[in-house]
């Protein structure tokens, strides 16, 4: 080996249990993956919203239910809900140090699922016209 090993522990044993939280860089990585996905999705989403400005309900519902628009907004919703779930958890962990912390982290999860599922339900309904 060319470089000096700082301890007797092998790199494998250090990463095997993924640190004290046992999840390694999972949270960090998912935040980044959703962030990268959201860059193009946000741009397309803004253009879709501009295209819907001032239209009446029938026209808006038809556009929102078309395959490209519905799928793009669904992807935007999924990536956003996941991204904000992770992001708000970090904010709570940074500022709340009382017993309230666990409650807020739970509320954060519920909020993100409710928002995500509501938007997806609406888009599915618009797409299939039930």
């Amino acid at each position, binding site marked *: 080996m060319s470089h000096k090993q700082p301890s007797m522990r092998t790199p494998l044993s250090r990463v095997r249990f993924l640190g004290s939280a046992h999840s390694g860089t999972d949270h960090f990585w998912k935040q980044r993956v959703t*962030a990268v996905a959201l860059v193009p999705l*946000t741009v397309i989403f803004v253009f879709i919203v*501009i295209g819907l400005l001032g239209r009446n309900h029938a026209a808006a519902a038809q556009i929102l239910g078309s395959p490209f628009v519905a799928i793009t907004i669904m992807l935007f919703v999924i990536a*956003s809900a996941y991204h*904000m779930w992770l992001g708000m958890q970090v*904010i709570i962990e940074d500022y709340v140090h009382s017993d309230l912390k666990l409650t807020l982290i739970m509320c954060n999860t519920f909020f993100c699922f409710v928002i995500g599922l509501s*938007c997806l339900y609406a888009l599915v309904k*618009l797409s299939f016209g039930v």
Partner: protein
Amino acid sequence: MAHTRRAVERPLSPHLGIYRPTLTMTMSIVHRITGAALFFGTLLMAWWLLAAASGPTAYAKVQAFTGSIFGMLILFGYTWALIHHMLGGVRHLIWDTGRGFGPAEREWLTLATLVGSVGLTILIWIIGILFMGGSR
């Protein structure tokens, strides 16, 4: 003294209050604030999509809100928060690769996200108003 077991006055690591405010620091705080704002802003998106799925009456209520002065202010802030958080996110992704940390680089990167977000927000609204024909 009232407290018999007084906490030992150990030195603390310097925190926000001790530093001179810098642009990168301010934009870091703004990134978090816009992120939190967008978190709650999704309520508006959910309301809008559910209204579109519900019918003309519900959709008219959303349009009445987004057409009001208060609603437009909220939407303008929403647009800026979205664009600023996106550009700030891109800057963080660049920093994640280990690039852009030089004294000059980090300053202009940060300034670019601020100027870019304000510029793009105004541009989006100009396009939006033109698209609507100036009135609703």
